[in-house]
């Protein structure tokens, strides 16, 4: 039914031409714009904020020379967070998929590591930003 009238032409559906060169150009432009924003150069951050269940549990200096290991109690269990040489990462986690460990080391302004099972959000910022209390949609 989908391509019944023009069996060999994949650019047609329901008998109407649905893909012109212009469409492909538009889609390509959007994908390129998306990739550009994905690799948008960002400044290095200086502050690490750790939140559990939306509550701020601690604010740390990212550029501290000494290695820091922070143990945080998440919803499922403990989480070990390391800060060293301007980078922050999760070294041990009590969650089952260990995605937060696989997210690696972060240091740029606006980057974050999220551990969903533990409800932990670790974010890197440049300075204290004004935050909203809540957003209702």
């Amino acid at each position, binding site marked *: 039914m989908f391509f019944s009238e023009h069996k060999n032409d994949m650019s047609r559906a329901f008998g109407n031409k649905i893909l012109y060169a212009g469409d492909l150009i538009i889609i390509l432009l959007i*994908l390129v714009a998306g990739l550009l924003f*994905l690799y948008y150069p960002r400044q290095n951050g200086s502050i690490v904020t750790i939140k559990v269940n939306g509550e701020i549990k601690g604010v740390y200096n990212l550029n501290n020379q000494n290695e820091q290991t922070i143990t945080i109690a998440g919803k499922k269990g403990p989480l070990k967070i390391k800060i060293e040489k301007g980078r922050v990462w999760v070294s041990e986690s009590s969650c089952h998929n260990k995605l937060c460990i696989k997210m690696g080391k972060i240091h740029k302004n606006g980057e*974050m590591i999220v551990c969903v099972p533990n409800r932990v959000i670790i974010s890197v910022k440049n300075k204290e*930003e004004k935050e909203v209390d809540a957003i209702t*949609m």
Partner: protein
Amino acid sequence: MNKKITELSLLTAVGIIFFTVETVLPNPVPFFRLGLANIVTIIVIKRWGVMNAVLVLFLRIILGSLVTGKIFTPLFIMSVAGGSASLVIMFLLIKYFPEKVSLVGVSVAGASVHNIVQLYIANCLFIKSVYIISILPVFLFTSVFSGALVGILTIYSLRIIGQKIKKY
């Protein structure tokens, strides 16, 4: 004249249903929507011209926000801004590139412009953070898929409407 009023009201009603269902349904990601109401906007641009599309769009957003209880909230302002911007882009594409861009391209462009403007407004109004830039690529990639889906549905709907209207 009566035919026009009937069809425009019917399309507005369909738009409000899409708008309401999409707002009420739980989203996996905040702000993310398929944009099914965009089908109505494109149909009106195609069949009744851009001025009627503006009318239907604003009626849909105002009445839809009244139904969902979100009128004059940030979401309402974001809907108005995003909807108007995507309407302008879709109208320009339909008017100036009729043989170069199909409704799939029109709807993909409309969806991505809608998302960009919405995020920009959210950034100006209340979030004020670099996170917006981190979310934008995700929105652009998803708008390609949702826009293409909406475009194909629109082509199909326009065809059905064209066949049904002839019978009366």
